[in-house]
């Protein structure tokens, strides 16, 4: 617990290490004030503490779904900031506030797909160790992959019920820095599963009262906390194995103990934020109350994915009594929160003064701030070139995984012409959603077993960002990143129970995508309105749902010949519609969709359901998965052209996708977005 070993030294600072070794020996065997050899009263130390938090295995500035660089995130740039701070300050320490091992495809790859071996260190820890951390805590997401995996990658052997006896567990590679967590306790032995705290002795450059520079030992106690709600969030992994204790009670227990063991200052790393609600031992963000426990000198926060301090923050938790978002204090304690994915670095500058009672923090001289990897001109700091080579194997492995075929398709799946009825990228999503909901209803909702399960999905990428902002999956092998192209957002599946009248209202609302076309006008008319493509829900699903959109009619009167299996839909008939949580909860403002019609809230993501469906199907065929024209425009001859924009030179694709009458009239529609102008002959639809 009280780590009196050289392993606790920051490995990157050899010069300091030599000095520190002597100090540690003294600290381990000696008393707090070091007798007559201690610093003179009035000696002062400037100490800079740095914080990273919520790194979520975001090591490189890279988007694994897009398979493209993304400089806005990644520890490789945080590392640059860390080195800047170290270069500018004599005494620095670096801490991490948790949520390290999960959150990117790389995290899943190492935990599930190609499990990191016991003998290897997790990629993020390789990167963090190369920079050198002094200590860190454990976030709620560390528990996502289960206790066995957490124990492995942190180099711990947990004494918990669902794992073998400690003596039978291998001691695997963990990070080189100590990880502390005080409020998660094994039900087996009632002991914290990590060391609750550590006391680090660091030799620091100080200024003696006579102005001379001297070196002094300072003992920094570090204690860690995670949200007690992990018991709900990861119930399956944790129930019966561990319990959590409240932040305030836990701190009240350990901090006096840390003080008694000689800690000069106390750093609390708490993976959470503040919350003005009444204190509870199970509250998610208990830091307002944790900070009130006597003895805490610095609070390093996380979990909320926010920047603190931040005078302009509108985040409710930073605008409550006891939290000073400008000064950067919580209950008067200096505090920081360094955003997430390595975007920011938290910095606390402390002034310590040696008094007759030992080291004391001068709060009037303390400052807190965060540094951003983004410069004022919106560019980003350079990446630390030493990081990428450390994780090259894992990085390339993850890319290979993302490119691993999950199936094949015999047709090109795109949204270039979704506005005029192309189903190639939408039908498969609707099929996957409908099948998933059908299975659930059959197994769990017998009262609805006889109702048809329909589905809606929209072209999420429909040219807003220009000619490249469309879904476009080539024929051939399908990989995970293609599924992300087919389903853009992290929605979850929901099913709603609606009537035939509701269906019509739903489709009428979606038909706002189109302007009202006057067939007598001889001038060109734009087909597509400003109503966003992501709200242009296309309905499909079990049986044959068919409808027409008559764009010559005003809003609310455009859906014609709405039939199911060839019969006009009775306004009072009931249907189940598979959709996503956003739409079912009222997203987009569709009539009647406000959360009150939901009959099933699935925890599964639409994208994952799609991936599973493709895996099960193995081969997608145009005839089966990409040619069902559930809707088409009502035929009408127009005196003038009806036009719309899409990526250039694709009229032949429209024809091959079964959309007649589409011709390109201008290779550049004048938007400067790489879009061409097309026209559609509504008389042949």
């Amino acid at each position, binding site marked *: 617990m009280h780590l009196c070993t050289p392993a606790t030294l920051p490995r990157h600072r050899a010069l300091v290490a030599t000095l520190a070794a002597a100090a540690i020996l003294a600290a381990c065997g000696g008393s707090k004030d070091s007798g007559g050899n201690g610093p003179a009263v009035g000696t002062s130390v400037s100490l800079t503490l740095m914080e990273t938090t919520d790194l979520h295995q975001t090591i490189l500035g890279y*988007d694994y779904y897009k398979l493209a660089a*993304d400089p*806005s*995130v990644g520890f490789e740039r945080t590392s640059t900031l860390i080195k800047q701070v170290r270069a500018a300050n004599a005494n620095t320490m670096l801490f991490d506030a948790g949520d390290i091992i999960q*959150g990117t495809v790389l995290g899943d790859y190492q935990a599930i797909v190609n499990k990191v071996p016991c003998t290897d260190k997790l990629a993020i820890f390789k990167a963090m160790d190369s920079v050198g951390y002094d200590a860190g805590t454990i976030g709620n997401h560390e528990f996502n992959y289960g206790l066995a995996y957490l124990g492995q990658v942190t180099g711990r052997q947990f004494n918990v019920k669902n794992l073998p006896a400690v003596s039978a567990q291998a001691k695997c590679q963990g990070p080189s820095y100590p990880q502390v967590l005080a409020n998660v306790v094994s039900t087996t032995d*009632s002991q914290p599963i990590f060391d609750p705290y550590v006391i680090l002795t660091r030799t620091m450059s100080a200024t003696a009262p006579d102005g001379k520079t001297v070196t002094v030992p300072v003992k920094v106690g570090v204690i860690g906390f995670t949200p007690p*709600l992990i*018991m*709900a*969030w990861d119930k399956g992994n944790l*129930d*019966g194995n561990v*319990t959590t*204790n*409240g932040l*305030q*009670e836990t701190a009240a227990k350990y901090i006096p103990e840390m003080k008694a063991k000689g800690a000069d200052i106390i750093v609390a790393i708490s993976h959470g934020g503040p919350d003005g*609600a*009444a*204190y*509870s*031992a*199970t509250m998610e963000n208990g830091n307002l109350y944790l900070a009130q426990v006597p003895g805490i000198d610095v609070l390093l926060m996380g979990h909320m*994915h926010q920047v603190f301090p931040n005078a302009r923050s*509108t*985040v*409710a*938790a930073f605008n409550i009594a006891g939290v000073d978002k400008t000064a950067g204090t919580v209950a008067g304690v200096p505090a920081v929160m360094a955003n997430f*994915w390595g975007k920011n670095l938290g910095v606390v500058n402390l002034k310590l003064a040696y008094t007759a009672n030992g080291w004391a923090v001068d709060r009037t001289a303390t400052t807190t701030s965060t540094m951003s990897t983004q410069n004022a001109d919106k560019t980003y700091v350079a990446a630390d070139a030493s990081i990428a080579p450390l994780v090259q194997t894992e990085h390339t492995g993850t890319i290979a995984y993302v490119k691993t075929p999950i199936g094949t398709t015999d047709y090109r799946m795109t949204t270039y012409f979704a506005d005029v009825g192309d189903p190639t990228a939408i039908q498969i999503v609707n099929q996957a959603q409908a099948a998933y909901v059908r299975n659930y209803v059959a197994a*769990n*909702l017998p*009262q*609805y077993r006889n109702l048809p399960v329909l589905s809606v999905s929209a072209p999420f990428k429909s040219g*807003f*960002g220009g000619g490249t902002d469309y879904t476009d999956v080539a024929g051939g092998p399908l990989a995970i990143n293609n599924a992300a192209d087919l389903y853009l*957002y*992290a*929605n*979850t599946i929901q099913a709603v*129970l609606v009537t035939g009248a509701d269906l019509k209202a739903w489709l009428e609302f979606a038909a706002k995508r189109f302007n009202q076309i006057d067939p007598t006008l001889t001038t060109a008319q734009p087909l597509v309105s400003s109503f*966003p493509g*992501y709200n242009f829900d296309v309905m499909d699903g079990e049986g044959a749902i068919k409808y027409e959109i008559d764009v010559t009619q005003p809003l609310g009167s455009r859906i014609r010949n709405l039939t199911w299996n060839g019969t006009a839909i009775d306004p009072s008939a009931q249907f189940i519609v598979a959709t996503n*949580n*956003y739409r079912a*909860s*009222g*997203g*987009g*403002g569709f009539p*009647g969709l*406000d*959360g*009150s*019609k*939901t*009959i*099933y*809230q699935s*925890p599964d*993501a639409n994208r994952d359901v799609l991936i599973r469906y493709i895996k099960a199907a193995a081969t997608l065929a145009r005839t089966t998965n990409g040619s069902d024209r559930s809707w088409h425009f009502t035929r009408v001859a127009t005196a003038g052209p009806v036009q719309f924009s899409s990526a250039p030179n694709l009229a032949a694709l429209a024809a091959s996708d079964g959309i007649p009458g589409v011709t390109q009239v201008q290779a550049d529609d004048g938007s400067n977005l790489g879009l061409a102008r097309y026209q559609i002959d509504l008389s042949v639809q």
Partner: protein
Amino acid sequence: MKRLLAAVALLATIAIAAAATRPFWVAPDAAQAQAWLQAAADRHDARAEASLARWSDRGDAQARQAYAGLLAHRSDAASRRRLEKVLGDGAEAGDALAATQLAQLLASASVGAGPSTGTRAGTGTGLVAGAGAPADDTRIARLLAQGNAAHVPAAARLLALRVLNAKPGASDIVRAATLMGQAAEGGDAPAMFLYANMLRAGQGVKQDEPQALALYQAAADADYAPAIQALAIAYRQGELGLPADASQSRLMDHEAAEALAHAAH
């Protein structure tokens, strides 16, 4: 004497709670003991559940919430009936939150079954019904009126939805918006989201995108996933006065996934 008995009962229950879960000394107050009892009962500790039920039956509103939260997580018919009884007793005793929850329970029973959304803050009343008896519309209206009179924000939201979803001709969009605005003002996250949608569309209220954005952000702060998703879309498309920022959109999408994962428990 009555007060003394109540105190003894409270201490006894705390002791049971502590014994069932963790050391006694860490039980800071009755609410905490109730939370622990709820957690223990959730792990099928019959003794803990019985204690929580007794505490609830004695009329303690906090215990009622803890017990109702426990029952709402279960899908069996007996728990559903018990939940209705507990909330009904609470409503009778003047507990406006229980009245609102019961109204939601009855209303959703008329729609169908759904798993509980849990009792996380920001998700309205925290209760979603399982399948049950056909709803008593008059009773639902009365219960919501009780909740709304006591300014339970979710009651105003549910009343707003009733107005919105009334039969054609009976719908009063301005009244619905007013009620939804009240619910949003009261801090109900789903109402903030729905009212933001109304403000954005100018539905029953003057169109006001800046206020809609502020409400989406407030609901997102409360971890309400649809609001975070609205922001993810808005950043991608450059809507609501936000700059088009694909990176920020991706970050919000990640936030939404996290909020959804939390809400699933």
